[in-house]
């Protein structure tokens, strides 16, 4: 094992990252690329708020504004929030359940590279004739009407990155079902693992309808099909249904892992077991289930008729019940605990009122007749930013601080972290609270400008002012990360001192094979139990020391994804350029052939021998 300690050149480091199948490294890849896209989406958000700061502004043109708002939504959902959460899932879940890796390390890498190339493809639209401009929902009549290649970039880019997400979903499901350490029963799984599990199940069933919808759009726009062309018998409402059958579960795919992160934080920093664990698990599963029953509440104004609207209204209200159960269980977790306000805990505490505010406006919109007024107004913009920023983004920032020592063996600066929180938290409420009223006062969403003196001027100015604070918060965060990485001070095992679950028991930096010996899980919060019983090592083991089987690195996932990336250009320019079809064929061939190579080659991985394990640092035997 001396090889791992050797100094490596840049080339071999790069090669290592391109071919890695280690879940901890893939986690970092997800976090880094998701973080990059988060900054991109954030800049787009700032441009939006600059444009809307004053009435009649001409900072952005009408068409460009629509491109920016579309890319802001698409980037934030598909390329920032989901990948960053995948980063945490990769970093934490295998450690949390006592596994040496995910079930399919090769597919894990493939999932990442598909997402990465899909995201790059989507963003290349900026430099190749214009970005998509029909909103992140890309409703069919407008997305067929939209000139240029923007929508093609949207459909193809999401198709490629969506395939990656789908693969990742299956991977986590199998990992959690099959790879749990002895004693880690379902009802001892930490909440983050549970929420990852349910979110992955949602991915499994929600992404295929999106895939189909996107294929219809691709076929309609590039290959002459008529799914959405009403003059040829097509129907645009099909797109709306398919999109929201995907789109509503997607919201829960984002928020459930966020709930998981906060559940961990509340327990750790209250030094108290999660209150009502089984109710929390049940609520998580119920939310996931109901998530599939409510998609048409995005379509109350489409004209589905009163019966459909009434059913979906009541079903939507029902989701508030398990969500409320969660909120109260969190409150009762901190009640009677010993609350330490660290940066992650600060985010979690900020999350409660923010998310409750976002949740209750959701219930208001579930009342269908009221939604006729609220739908597509700034009220809905305020609502979903309250749940997505107040829920998901706060969880992402909290998770960044919480899991940074686990991923990098360093602590982010607590002081700067708290400054970021207050700037971001204040800016967030200043930006979005006021937008509820803009909506009620009649301002539609997705407007590139507005006529002055309709009672909206002051509120829009305040909203834009708030956005500045959010941006400042993110800048401080970047400074914090740079400072921490440069200082590079080891954080050690159990850096928060009150860690409760397995991931905190593992020696730092985490060995590439994770657990030298598979741990035995003796209850919920197994690390806490060991610590309370005075076990210095923090783990009881389920097996004697023996050889560890490891998968080989592989460059094939990168090549397969690259093939689809190339093929996408072929599809995009089909009928416009003579080279389109050959490029499409070549790209698909690259993917198919590399799949064939993968199947043909024997790849049994390798073993780390017992003797080498004993020599390795980080444990004493």
């Amino acid at each position: 094992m001396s090889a791992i300690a050797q100094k490596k050149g840049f080339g071999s480091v790069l090669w290592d990252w391109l071919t890695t199948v280690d879940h901890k490294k893939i986690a970092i890849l997800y976090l880094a690329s998701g973080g990059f896209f988060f900054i991109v989406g954030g800049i787009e958000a700032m441009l939006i708020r600059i444009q809307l700061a004053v009435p009649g502004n001409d900072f952005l043109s009408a068409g460009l504004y629509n491109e920016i708002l579309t890319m802001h939504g698409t980037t934030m959902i598909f390329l920032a929030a989901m990948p960053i959460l995948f980063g945490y899932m990769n970093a934490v879940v295998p450690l949390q359940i006592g596994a040496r890796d995910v079930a399919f390390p090769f597919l894990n890498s493939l999932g990442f590279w598909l997402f990465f190339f899909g995201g790059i493809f989507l963003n290349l639209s900026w430099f190749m004739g214009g970005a998509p401009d029909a909103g992140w929902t890309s409703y069919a009549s407008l997305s067929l009407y939209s000139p240029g290649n923007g929508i093609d970039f949207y459909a193809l880019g999401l198709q490629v990155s969506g395939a990656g997400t789908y693969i990742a979903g299956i991977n986590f499901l199998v990992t959690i079902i099959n790879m749990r350490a002895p004693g880690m029963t379902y009802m001892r799984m930490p909440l983050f693992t549970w929420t990852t599990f349910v979110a992955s199940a949602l991915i499994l069933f929600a992404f295929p309808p999106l895939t189909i919808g996107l294929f219809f759009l691709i076929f309609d726009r590039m290959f002459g099909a008529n799914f959405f062309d009403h003059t040829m018998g097509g129907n645009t409402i099909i797109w709306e249904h398919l999109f929201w059958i995907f789109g509503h579960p997607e919201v829960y795919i984002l928020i459930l892992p966020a709930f998981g992160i906060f559940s961990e934080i509340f327990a750790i920093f209250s030094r108290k077991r999660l209150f009502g664990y089984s109710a929390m698990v049940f609520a998580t599963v119920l939310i996931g289930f109901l998530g599939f029953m409510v998609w048409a509440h995005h379509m109350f104004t489409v004209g589905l008729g009163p019966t459909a609207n009434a059913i979906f209204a009541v079903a939507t209200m029902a989701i508030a019940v398990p969500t409320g159960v969660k909120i109260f269980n969190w409150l009762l977790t901190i009640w009677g605990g010993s609350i330490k306000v660290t940066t992650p805990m600060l985010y979690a505490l900020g999350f409660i009122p923010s998310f409750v505010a976002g949740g209750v406006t959701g219930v208001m919109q579930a009342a269908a007749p009221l939604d006729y007024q609220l739908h597509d107004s700034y009220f809905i913009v305020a609502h979903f930013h309250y749940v997505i920023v107040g829920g998901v983004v706060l969880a992402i920032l909290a998770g960044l601080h919480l899991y940074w020592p686990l991923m990098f063996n360093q602590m982010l600066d607590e002081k700067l972290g708290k400054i970021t929180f207050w700037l971001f938290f204040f800016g967030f409420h200043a930006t979005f609270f006021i937008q509820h009223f803009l909506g009620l006062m009649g301002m539609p969403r997705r407007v590139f400008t507005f006529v002055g003196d309709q009672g909206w001027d002051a509120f829009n100015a305040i909203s834009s002012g708030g956005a500045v604070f959010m941006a400042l918060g993110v800048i401080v965060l970047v400074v914090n990360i740079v400072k921490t990485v440069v200082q590079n001070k080891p954080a050690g095992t159990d850096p928060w001192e009150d860690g409760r679950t397995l991931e905190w028991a593992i020696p730092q930096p985490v060995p590439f094979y994770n657990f030298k010996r598979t741990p035995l899980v003796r209850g919920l919060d197994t690390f806490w139990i060991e610590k309370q019983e005075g076990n210095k090592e923090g783990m009881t083991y389920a097996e004697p020391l023996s050889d560890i089987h490891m998968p080989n690195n592989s460059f094939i996932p990168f090549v397969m994804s690259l093939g689809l990336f190339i093929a996408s250009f072929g599809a995009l320019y089909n009928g416009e350029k003579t080279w389109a079809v050959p490029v499409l064929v070549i790209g698909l061939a690259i993917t198919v052939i590399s799949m064939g190579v993968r199947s043909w080659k024997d790849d049994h991985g390798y073993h780390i021998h017992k003797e080498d394990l004993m020599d390795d640092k980080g444990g004493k035997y």
Partner: protein
Amino acid sequence: MKVGFDLAMMKGLKKWRLFSMLAALMFFLAACGQEQISTLTPRGPVASEQFNLLILSTAIMTFVIIVVVVVYVMALMKFRRSKVGEDTIPEQVEGNTKLEILWTVIPIILLVILAVPTVYYTYTQAEVAGMEEVDEEGNKTALTVNVNAHLYWWEFEYPDLGIVTSQELVVPTGERVYFNLMAADVKHSFWIPSIGGKLDTNVENMNKFYLEFDIESEGLKDGVFYGKCAELCGPSHALMDFKVKSVSREDFDAWVAAANEEPSAPESDLAVQGEELFVQNGCIGCHAVSAVGGAVAQGQGPNVATFGDRNRVAGYLDYTEENLKDWIKNPQEYKPGNNMPEYPNLSDEELDALAAYLMGLSVENKQ
């Protein structure tokens, strides 16, 4: 611990005064926004019902927020590590079934309170049978308007009256007005915030609903209600505004009668010249000048029979001659992506003539 929690809940509940809270809420909300465009100043029964739902749901939700915040703040005050001691290991409570039941059942009750009027209004507001009712002579008893949404303008067709207008809807007060909604090109959404919620204009199927106007729009700022397109429909979605004039039934009947007459001849020489230009340049090919007729095909332009009565140029620009001339010269600059060709070669005199002609086209003056 449990006792403390219950006490806190009770205290929170006692502080709660539903009525004063509601009154304050309504006062605060009604102070927001302008009468001609705000959902908070409902001026028709549909919007009022929706506003009542807003108040009811806000009240319920405020109650929830208060309960959460009370527990939250108390927990934060009582259980900080600095208060309970650095080395304290709190009791590891598993949960409490009674509490779980409590915070499952109470929200369900609250939601039922909200769900009942929701379902009721969902059905009543979808009621459009009145559209087909006829009197003894076989005439429709209610007014129906076909709304056709185009990139980026609105056409209002009165199928039973044989007239059509655009950009500004004229309706009688105090009675249900039924709407057939459809889009000619891409999906739009029809919304008059002070009168009622929106309904989409789809490309493949017709949506129907009704609205009712309580007051005449004359007293409002600009003398009209504001209407909006609420569904992203392209670059100029933000500018796809329309206006609504609500008038008494007598005034409406008079307006209909006037609209059924042939347009009166232009009064000034300049306007006569403008009429010629309007024909020569082919404007007439897309823009009808008589209100008598039906819906236009996709790609054609709005009817200008009521141009002189309008409140805005192009739906959102102030109604001035200057704006009208700028618009004719360069429509793409004012509404990017719209279908009107540009006329950069018109001379200033020609533009003056066209403006005089268009601004003289009026139905109201004939009343």
